[in-house]
């Protein structure tokens, strides 16, 4: 499954009950590759799109939507009934069950609900804890963690079920720089397809096959990172640091500014 991922969205609109404006307005997009970055200012509809894909908007949050979403040719609902989608919320503390005494129990929570055996739970929890550098925190109470640690626990709770699709809403916002670096190098090794909302533009430009740009509920562009930052000129959206440095240093690659560290290095080497 992970080598074959096709997300097709057609004329998708979403309105939360009690709100006048559409949260998503007539979005049509086709994924290219299995790593999709989503950028845009607040109130762009980024979180709403993930909430809709995860089946939260429209079910747990009262909302109406029209249009269609298909994954690998199947209607979203049908695909979801056969596959696991994990959503990581923007606010990590609200992700946790609030019922667990330890980080271990928190990670085991959804597996227990799935009726997994103790052995299966233990190995899955240990694997997820190891991936997110949480092994030393397994005995701690989830209430005693810092913001960045909570965010890592929340990611591990999403990961522990071995999902077929990961939806990540700004997962590194509370992490320290090293935590962020670890997270992105971990993501690079991940085989599971994902949609990732992030402000870390250099990392997105390095990692993602495609970037979707949303603003005011509409899709402005969906293209490769290179094309996005070549074409996009919107005061509400920043550019990668590599792009901005290259512009100052007048370093170009194939007639455009580099978008990530690798490209910047190549452009600098070509210039010498």
């Amino acid at each position, binding site marked *: 499954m992970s080598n074959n991922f096709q997300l097709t969205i057609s004329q998708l609109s979403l309105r939360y009950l009690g709100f006048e404006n559409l949260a998503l307005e007539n979005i049509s997009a086709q994924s290219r590759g299995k790593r999709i970055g989503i950028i845009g200012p607040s109130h762009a509809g980024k979180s709403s799109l993930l909430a809709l894909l995860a089946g939260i908007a429209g079910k747990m949050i009262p909302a109406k939507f029209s249009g269609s979403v298909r994954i690998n040719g199947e209607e979203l609902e049908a695909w979801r009934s056969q596959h696991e989608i994990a959503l990581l919320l923007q606010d990590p*503390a609200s992700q946790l069950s609030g019922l667990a005494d330890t980080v271990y129990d928190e990670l085991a929570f959804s597996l227990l609900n799935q009726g997994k055996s103790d052995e299966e739970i233990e190995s899955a929890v240990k694997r997820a804890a190891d991936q997110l550098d949480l092994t030393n925190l397994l005995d*701690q109470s989830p209430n005693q963690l*810092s913001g960045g640690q909570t965010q890592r626990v929340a990611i591990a709770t999403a990961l522990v079920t071995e999902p077929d699709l990961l939806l990540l809403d700004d997962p590194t916002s509370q992490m320290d720089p090293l935590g962020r670096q670890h997270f992105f190098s971990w993501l690079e090794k991940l085989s599971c397809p994902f949609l990732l909302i992030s402000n870390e533009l250099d990392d997105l430009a390095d990692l993602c096959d495609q970037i979707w740009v949303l603003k005011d509920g509409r899709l402005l562009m969906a293209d490769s990172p290179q094309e996005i930052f070549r074409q996009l000129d919107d005061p509400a959206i920043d550019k990668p640091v590599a792009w901005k*440095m290259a512009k*100052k240093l007048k370093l170009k690659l194939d007639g455009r500014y580099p978008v990530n560290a690798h490209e910047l290095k190549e452009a*600098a080497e070509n210039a010498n």
Partner: protein
Amino acid sequence: MQIKIKSLHYIYPETNFSLDIPDLTLSPGLICLVGQNGSGKSTLLKLLADLLPAGDAIKADGQALSEYLASGRLSKIAYAFQDPNDQLFNSSVEKELAWSMKQAKLPEAEIARRTEAALKEFGLAEFRDLNPYDLSLSGKKLLTIASALVLDPEVCLLDEPLMSLDYPGRCLVTRLLKKRLARGKTVIMITHDMDWLAENCQEVYAMSQGQLVYHGPVHQLFSDQELLGRLGLLPAKTWQLSQLIGLKPEVLSLKQTGLLAKIS
């Protein structure tokens, strides 16, 4: 206003995590605290806000902090939480902004005037009647910062004010903080954003395991691999990228990159 810390010791009984600061004077200007998650930055900020008890170890203008604040000076020091959900509780954005001013017993007319100004300045006017919990995370974060700045405090304590902000919000907060600093106020803030730090801050304080382990220029911190490793920090992206492409000396900021490009 000057804040002096002398023999500050604080311990969380549940975890045994302790914070120790033997001696520190904080004068007006921008003071940035960096360090790994769990290094004690937020604890120090809460102690400075009198949200955790510091006894006589923290003095504001020579007076013990809690006494200083209790004697009608509540608006002198303002604090914004890292997680907006820990701070926001009023039923509308407008009420949230007015709340801290009411506690500080500002006159009604002044509260109304400042609320209007803040709604406009922070781009929150169209959301004034909305429950803060219905704002986007970036909107909530802006509201927490607005609720602190609206007091026009001498000292502003901001726990990761740039976190979760979108790009326009980040530009706005940067501009407003610079305005405050130009008026001689103190801003003490925690940040994980090394590029912002490199662009805006001259000197930095770094914490590790409840202690202040570095105070000095940002470029010196970035040059010291051993110290960075010990602190679990990385230099700004501009610094890392300039190393990658062999720029010497490494550049701290985009501003410096531009200058370097002109010189060469």
